[in-house]
């Protein structure tokens, strides 16, 4: 299937999928005014990916900031991953947060409490 590969902009993160390693990476800032429009390609891609996923998919989420509009779209993305996980394919979400950024850690824990997929909280030290 077509790989997804979006570069970052000042208001949107990069989104990349590495087929060989089975790694989906979302990285940067996610503060667009219209987050539905931005996340639609990823949600569509995941829907497609879910039909024939790899045995194991690693999802690295490394966001510096995200707005509340993105937070709902990120939940939609995680729900797609949850469906893949339910169909007996391994999914692990690595949630990165910068050293001392308790707000970002807490945001990850909020998702972890809603979504039934294993999360790993990873502190990034400069």
């Amino acid at each position: 299937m077509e790989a997804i590969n979006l570069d970052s902009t000042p208001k949107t993160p990069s989104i990349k999928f590495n087929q060989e390693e089975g790694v989906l990476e979302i990285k940067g800032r996610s503060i667009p005014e219209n987050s539905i429009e931005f996340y639609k390609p990823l949600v569509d891609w995941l829907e497609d990916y879910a039909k024939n996923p790899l045995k194991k998919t690693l999802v690295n989420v490394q966001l510096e900031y995200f707005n509340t509009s993105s937070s709902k779209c990120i939940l939609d993305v995680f729900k797609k991953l949850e469906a893949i996980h339910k169909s007996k394919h391994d999914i692990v979400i690595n949630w990165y947060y910068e050293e001392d950024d308790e707000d970002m850690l807490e945001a990850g824990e909020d998702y972890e409490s809603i979504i039934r997929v294993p999360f790993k909280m990873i502190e990034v030290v400069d």
Partner: protein
Amino acid sequence: MSFNLAEYYSNLSKGDVVLAYKGSITSDLINDILEGVEKRLEDADEDGKLRKKIYNVLVESLQNLFHHIETIHEGIEEPLDPKFGILVVVKDGDLYKVTTGNFINVKRIKFLKEKIDKINSLSKDELKDMYKFILNHQRLSAKGGGGLGLVDIARKSGNKLEYDFYQYNDDYYFFNLTISV
């Protein structure tokens, strides 16, 4: 006496002003403001944690304005730009105060006031629960707002939301929201 915009703005822009803006709230403007404030905070050598909180509060405040302010203001006798809003950031001792201002139709006041009062009545844990509930149960509106902005601002700032509605005429009030970070 009815609300005087010029006087309000000049009162707001006193003290150690980091940024003061009045005019159209557009997507490009939001970029410029965020970039400018980020640089100012870096130059001021503020703590990284505080910088992030201020940045987050700014993003949500500006995008709240962007999504909710009224495009046209019928019956307001001021030479207003379309999508008119005000943003002022002032340093007050150890705190940064972020203030937004916009005209609001009288019909929308009740809903907004109840929402803010509700948020202000909640503890930190209750706010977290409210955030998670809205996140998980409410769809994004066509405007792109999710009803989470104010809850998130309250969570990140850790302070109560200060607000006022000043009467302008029979149909319009001016809504002032101040967040201390």
